[in-house]
């Protein structure tokens, strides 16, 4: 088996596992379909924006939840944004935590919010790692061959 075939197989397996384990959903596939020769880096670009945006929001959340008197609306606003962007790229597990997080905001439950913040950070760093691994695999395959298998 040559290295190209091997890499292709790895890529497919890895991608499939991400979907099976719920890290990514169909929206990610949508983004892949928007990528072509005229926009060969589209997915990486959008995901990079998502990373930047999420990191900013997570820092805002740290600040917002560190206050003496919690402004739940402010917290909720940040979570809403994070939920939106994770949904737009198909980061299912991050999105799911955000939903729970918003419920705690509405209920004005401090403990719940703090737990969710931890959880959403955790899920975010997981999906970030996974996606970065995925992109590296794609680059290896590109280098070995010059095109990425379409699904």
């Amino acid at each position, binding site marked *: 088996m040559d290295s190209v075939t091997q890499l292709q197989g790895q890529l497919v397996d890895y991608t499939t596992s991400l979907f099976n384990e719920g890290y990514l959903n*169909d929206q990610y596939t*949508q983004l892949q379909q928007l990528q072509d020769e005229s926009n060969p880096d589209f997915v990486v670009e959008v995901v990079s924006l*998502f990373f930047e*945006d999420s990191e900013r929001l997570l820092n805002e959340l740290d600040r917002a939840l560190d206050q003496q008197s919690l402004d739940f609306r402010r917290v909720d*606003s940040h979570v*809403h944004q994070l939920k939106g*962007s994770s*949904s*737009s790229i198909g980061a299912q597990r991050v999105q799911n935590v955000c939903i729970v997080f918003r419920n705690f905001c509405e209920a004005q439950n401090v403990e719940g919010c703090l737990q969710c913040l931890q959880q959403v950070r955790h899920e975010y760093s997981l999906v970030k790692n996974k996606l970065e691994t995925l992109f590296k695999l794609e680059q290896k395959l590109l280098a070995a061959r010059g095109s990425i298998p379409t699904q």
Partner: protein
Amino acid sequence: MARNGFVSRRRMSEKIDDFDLSPVESQDVHVLAVDDSLVDRKVIERLLRISSCKVTAVDSGRRALQFLGLDGEKSSAGFDGLKVDLIITDYCMPGMTGYELLKKVKESSTLREIPVVIMSSENVLARIDRCLEEGAEDFIVKPVKLSDVKRLKDYMMRDDREGSQNKGINKRKLSESSDPTSSPPSILPSSSPSQSQSSSSSSPSSSEPSSPNSLDSPTRRLKMTNSV
């Protein structure tokens, strides 16, 4: 680079202030996309471009109004040729919401003919109703998919162009089909105009919010009474 009002046929983008402009070829649909989220702007822009639309993407209702020449200031002298055929806006935005933007557009005698589509991550019937009542053409639940944009494009094309081909090599001049500047854009296809189906189930935790790709989207209620 295009100057003196001459519109280049080649697609180039030109940044003026905070607007990213592409020269308009009159046969193509020009969409003004409004969303405060950078991620969503990038996605909607790509969705529209891949569907052969020209796109101007802005990050707020205020900027949208500026672009449309509605902000009360000395306006769109430079933007005369860039007619907007469709506005697609996020609902939840800081400052001016998409709903408020919708109202301002519909209240304007010069702009109210422009169809406005609302996008929202919340599939809330009351919200959908409000928007449709205010004259929104359609309501898309986020995340936006290619099928959503295709659906929008389909009814805009059918509606303004009356089936004439305007893509591909043989670009026809607008005079051969109905001119979008004169025809009211919001006449929707022949399926019953006042189908008042209630909207689909709200399942906020599902990963696939409902945006069916057929004409009978439950979130669409065809209102014929947009402009009076």
